[in-house]
């Protein structure tokens, strides 16, 4: 008996904690314990938004580590563009997954973030190259465009020398890079200096780079110096005098004059660093807010209706134990939801499928116990014996079946996160959590509540209360 009171007390304690977590009361208390607001974390398929999966082109040797840096750079760039709550994650060993909740018009954002943003000042000697020309430099390899060779060797990620021999054709010729965007100390946007001109981006070099830049300009007065972004010529000014201050500006010319947004995007790209590899968009998904909300709302309604029918069935078929089962399932739901909030788990449609399956397994754990309980009652046992035996007979099947599911979902989760299969991962996580909690509620809550029924119902009409 003391054992039972202790268990009841524990159940009550757990209930109080999860109710505080689940319901929007005592927000300040929650914030001080968890350090953040506990709001449900909905996936893009439920709240609307956009997901892009970016991939390094074939031939690059990419590891998870080399993707961490670009992933951070992309996140910084997006945040600087005023897009909030953006998350970039490395998935598998060659993907970066970017998620933009609530965002729909994504063309421009994508254009900015996928630029590698590699700025170079290139010594082109006396070759005038019109803006838009793709060139090769001795810094890395061409990023995109016609001159990119599909069968090229894996390009070096660092400052490796290009091994393609210089040729007479100016496009195929390899030019020397004087300094790169990595040498910038600060970048800012300048408004148009004269009517008809566009915005420009002003930059300051680090003192070391300023030295190199000063030397180069001093020795090459009268020659051309190309400003190159992602191997594409932006402009090709003539060096009129030595530049020793380490300051300069980039502006588009004629038709390609910069608007404020253009200039600001370039500033963001330059300031947050250049990506070590060019990324290709392998996959993009946009879910409009209507579709997301509709999915969420309708699944909630459907879940409520389904649960109402389950409640009705359990009460009619199992009677008193049926009532215990519904209480136990409700507690299961509260604990699960609290864990989703606390961990936090991002809820997606596959995640909901995993949760539904775990509700099924929680119900199954109850049904298994009750069927055994009824069998024992039919065999003429007393209620105390039947409750105890029913539990002992049902337990091995509850334990083994759920353990197998936990093992399976563990493997699925591991694969999902190692190889970037997000569907598999979302499903496996909610399933494993739900199944673990369902074993707990069957073991702890259902059994304790059932034993509470024993005393009041011992002398009652068992046929009625237990639906034999």
């Amino acid at each position, binding site marked *: 008996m003391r054992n039972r009171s202790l268990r009841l007390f524990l159940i009550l304690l757990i209930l109080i904690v999860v109710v505080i977590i689940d319901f929007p009361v005592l927000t300040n208390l929650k914030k001080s314990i968890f350090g953040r607001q506990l709001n449900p974390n909905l996936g893009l*398929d439920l709240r609307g938004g956009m997901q892009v*999966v970016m991939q390094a082109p074939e031939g690059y040797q990419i590891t998870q580590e080399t993707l961490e840096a670009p992933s951070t750079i992309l996140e910084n760039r997006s945040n600087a563009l005023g897009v909030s709550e953006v998350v970039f994650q490395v998935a598998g060993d060659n993907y970066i997954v970017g998620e933009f909740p609530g965002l*729909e018009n994504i*063309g421009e954002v994508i254009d900015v973030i996928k630029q590698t943003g590699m700025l170079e000042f290139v010594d082109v000697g006396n070759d005038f190259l019109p803006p838009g020309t793709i060139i090769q430099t001795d810094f890395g390899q061409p990023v995109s465009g016609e001159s990119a060779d599909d069968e090229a060797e894996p390009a070096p990620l660092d400052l490796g020398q290009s091994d393609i021999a210089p040729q007479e054709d100016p496009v195929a010729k390899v030019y020397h890079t004087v300094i790169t965007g990595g040498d910038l100390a600060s970048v800012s946007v300048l408004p148009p200096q004269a009517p008809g001109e566009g915005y420009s981006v002003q930059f300051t070099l680090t003192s070391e780079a300023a030295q190199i830049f000063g030397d180069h300009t001093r020795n090459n007065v009268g020659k051309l110096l190309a400003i190159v972004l992602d191997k594409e010529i932006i402009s090709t000014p003539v060096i009129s005098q030595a530049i020793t201050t380490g300051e300069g500006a980039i502006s588009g010319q004629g038709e390609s004059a910069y608007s404020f947004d253009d200039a600001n995007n370039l500033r963001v790209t330059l300031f947050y660093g250049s990506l070590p590899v060019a990324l*290709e*968009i*392998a*996959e*993009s*998904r*946009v*879910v*409009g807010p*209507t*579709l997301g909300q*509709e*999915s969420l*709302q*309708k*699944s909630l*309604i*459907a*879940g409520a*209706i*389904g*649960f109402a*029918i*389950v409640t009705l*069935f359990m009460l009619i078929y199992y009677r008193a134990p049926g009532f215990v089962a519904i209480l136990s399932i409700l507690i299961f739901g509260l604990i699960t939801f609290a864990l989703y909030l606390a961990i936090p788990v991002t809820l997606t*449609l*596959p995640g909901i*499928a*995993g949760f*539904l*399956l775990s*509700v*099924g397994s929680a*119900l*199954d754990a109850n*049904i*298994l116990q009750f*069927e055994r309980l009824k069998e024992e009652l039919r065999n003429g046992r007393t209620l105390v014996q039947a409750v105890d035996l029913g539990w002992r*007979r049902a337990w*091995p*099947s509850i334990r*083994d*079946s759920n353990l*197998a*599911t936990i*093992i*399976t*979902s563990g493997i*699925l989760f591991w*694969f999902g996160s190692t*190889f970037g*299969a997000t*569907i*598999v991962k979302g*499903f496996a996580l909610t*399933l494993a959590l739900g199944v673990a909690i369902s074993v707990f509620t069957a073991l702890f809550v259902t059994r304790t509540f059932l034993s509470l029924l024993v005393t009041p119902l011992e002398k009652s009409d068992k046929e009625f209360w237990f639906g034999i």
Partner: protein
Amino acid sequence: MLNILGKRYLFFALSLLIIIPGLVIIAVYGLPLSIDFKGGSLVEVEMSEDNAPTTQQIVEIYDQNDIVDAQVQTSDQNGVILFLIRSSSLTQEQYSMIIDEIRSGFDQNLVERRFDTVGPSISRSVTQRALLAIGIAALAVIVYITFAFRGIKHAFRYGVCAIIAMMHDILVVVSIGAIGSRLFGWQMDSLFLTALLTVIGFSTQDKIVVFDRIRENEPVLRKVPFEKLVNHSIVQSLQRSINTQLMTVEFLLLSLALFGGTTLREMSIILLIGLLSGTYSSIFIAAPILVVWENREWRTWFGRTGTA
């Protein structure tokens, strides 16, 4: 007592009756894979009935934007028409052009619901990896069941039979997906994969519960022939099987199929059939195969025609 096992070859035939048509469809038309697994673009828009273009008009707009393989599917709900347009990959620019043209030509209030583009390389690798994950999970289940049933004879067989029955469930689901693709234009997308994973999870869990009864009865009914022991065990756990099935499938999923949004309807129907198959195969496939194995019945399969 109900003799379920006596009619075991009848149940095997019934399963084949569902699986074979689907496999024939797949053999003839290929797997109805969505862009999630073979790459391409999917556009979902909503327009009012009064201003909606015909599917032909949409295909023409795609043609003008150099996309010649657009396929349009429509569904009508209370005055609103939902368009699902599948094609080879669209760029962001092409997508904006097409939407603008439909908007200006037909419905100003067009709602953009979804725009997915998947490259071919990523879709291939995701599929392969998901299959690999399922394969390894199946091996783990065999190992685990062999361990959990180590107390009784031939524990290894229980694991193998659970996996055979699980493959049966996968085949049923794939077959239903293939039949649905011919009848309703369904495609196997990432939600289909989710449904498949759910069925796999449910299937093994259910097998273990049914096998548990055999494990429990075996030491007590040592003298009884194996076939009788198994039959006795499934009949004992029949009520539980039916009730759990009712709870998880009929009630929760039926309401999801009836009231859930369009995204979920196809998935709930597949889940409904898949989970039903999961319960069915525990009783009518997994347990009977245990008996077939015990009796080594394949020795008589080709010798004489009579089935038990």
